[in-house]
């Protein structure tokens, strides 16, 4: 009787573990499958002409250079606004703020910003930047919109990186006659930099791949020339992929996959860089 009970428990465990392993595999294998599939289907389309030329024949042929450049511009624009503001806010939270109601309000505001649907950001961007401030459909409006969306990611990862620096360093620095800011600049920021950089890249990676926030704030379907000023609209990879896969009749499938592949390269490339920075920093750390 006892033996059967014993077997039963272990059998349950075997089955349970098997089920969970299956679940994990079912989660993970499609991810690999997606990337491989896009690569296989899209690689034939990606030639030098593809990434350096302009679209022809209603997007069905030619290259996607303006979309690539556009995404680049938008990413840089997002970085310009969100990085200084986000890092400064993280410094405030990690080094200056005490645990008051106001600080808790700031933190919940950050969490809320992180949870707002991307299309609502698009609406906000439309209402404030495009219409109210009259920037029009522009790289500027889209970058500002993407910046606010990216802010919570940068703030939370930067804050975590700053907090990871041992408190003892700050105490020692102050005891040697440094001001708070000198301590932050010379020691804390320097040691937290890789973590902050990783967070920035991950945040920008998300911004580069987003479509909804730029739909009404900066994205254009077709522009004959590259954008010349921040007040111009621009093509962008995610928006381009969206349009050619849903709104262009008789769109060659291979070109679609090629576009998706280029976007994937962009995004995954940033991911790899961020991971590389993170592991290299961990190895070189002097604490």
């Amino acid at each position, binding site marked *: 009787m006892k033996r059967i009970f014993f077997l039963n428990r272990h059998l349950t465990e075997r089955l349970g573990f098997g089920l*969970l392993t299956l679940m994990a595999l079912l989660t993970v294998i499609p991810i690999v499958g997606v990337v491989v599939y896009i690569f296989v289907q899209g690689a034939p389309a990606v030639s030098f002409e593809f990434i350096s030329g302009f679209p022809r024949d209603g997007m069905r042929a030619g290259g996607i250079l303006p979309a690539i450049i556009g995404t680049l511009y938008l990413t840089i624009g997002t970085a310009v606004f969100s990085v200084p503001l986000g890092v400064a806010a993280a410094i405030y939270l990690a080094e200056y703020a005490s645990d008051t109601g106001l600080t808790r309000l700031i933190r919940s505001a950050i969490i809320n910003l992180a949870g707002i649907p991307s299309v609502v950001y698009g609406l906000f961007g439309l209402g404030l930047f495009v219409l109210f401030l009259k920037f029009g459909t522009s790289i500027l409006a889209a970058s500002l919109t993407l910046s606010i969306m990216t802010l919570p990611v940068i703030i939370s990862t930067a804050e975590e990186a700053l907090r990871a620096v041992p408190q003892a360093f700050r105490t020692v620095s102050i005891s040697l006659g440094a001001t*708070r800011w000198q301590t932050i600049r010379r020691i804390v920021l320097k040691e937290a930099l890789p973590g902050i950089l990783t967070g920035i890249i991950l945040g920008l990676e998300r911004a580069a791949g987003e479509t909804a926030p730029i739909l009404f704030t900066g994205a254009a379907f077709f522009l004959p020339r590259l954008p010349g000023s921040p007040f111009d609209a621009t093509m962008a990879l995610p928006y381009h992929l969206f349009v050619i896969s849903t709104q262009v009749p008789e769109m060659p499938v291979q070109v679609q996959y090629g576009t998706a592949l280029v976007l994937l390269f962009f995004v995954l490339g940033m991911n790899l860089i961020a991971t590389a920075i993170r592991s290299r920093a961990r190895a070189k750390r002097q604490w």
Partner: protein
Amino acid sequence: MEKTLNWREFIITRAIKASGYSAIVFVALIFFFLLREGIPALVEVPLSTLFGVRWYPIEEYFGILPLVTGSLIVTIGAAMIAVPFGIGTAVFISEIAPRWLREVIKPLVELLGGLPSVVLGFLGILVLSPFLRQFLNLPTGLTAFTGSLLLGGIAVPTIVSIAEDALDSVPHSYREGAWALGATRWQTIWRVTLPAAKSGVLTAIMLGVGRAIGETMAVMMVTGNAPVLAIHPGSLFAPARTMTATIAAEMGEVANGSAHYHVLFFIGMILFIISLIVNVAASSVVFRARKRAERVLS
């Protein structure tokens, strides 16, 4: 040793403090703008129509219920997929997988989280939807269910990473105590570890679902965009339309200041409030758990 004012330090400190408050400013700004452009909808469109069942903007039918039910059915479907797979994978990573496997799976899940949703939507159109149409013998592959599958895939990384963190922070001594009492690892997971990580896991689910509700592109591309009231189970396998997709699809075509324009902002406001509720609920779960822990330890 008289103190002198260091101007540079003063300005920098002020700038840092101002940046700290910026998050509050932005949330307030977003809320204010949505309100400003959304409230007029309540005035311009009779309430019975606004909360009615027909969404047909061309003929001034602005009933948002089909959109709400569309979002609901797609999200519930996504949750039913993402929660078991997400928690299961998190448990697998944290409790079962050997170290080397963990280092392989975690980055892969992170990778999924980084995939642009438009790429997933794109694959949804070209691969998933035709497959489902054949496999399930449906008139079209662009259904709420397709959306749920994609959304599930999008929500899983969020659930996995937060839940895995929560499971990881359960003190190892809990598990060791259970093993010492003769429990199998399986029993330990379900009776000791998971309950101990309850608040974190709950937070993970809430934030994952929150992410699903807010997703736009993938659902817009695969759910068929038919604003039909989705109230019976069969609706899962029929086309539907979410609130997010509606805004994305129609905002480009509305006249600035028209009733349609205001209604879209009104829908945006609802989405904002939903995400606010989800976040407040998630924070209070964490807060109450912390209070409980403090009481236990003191």
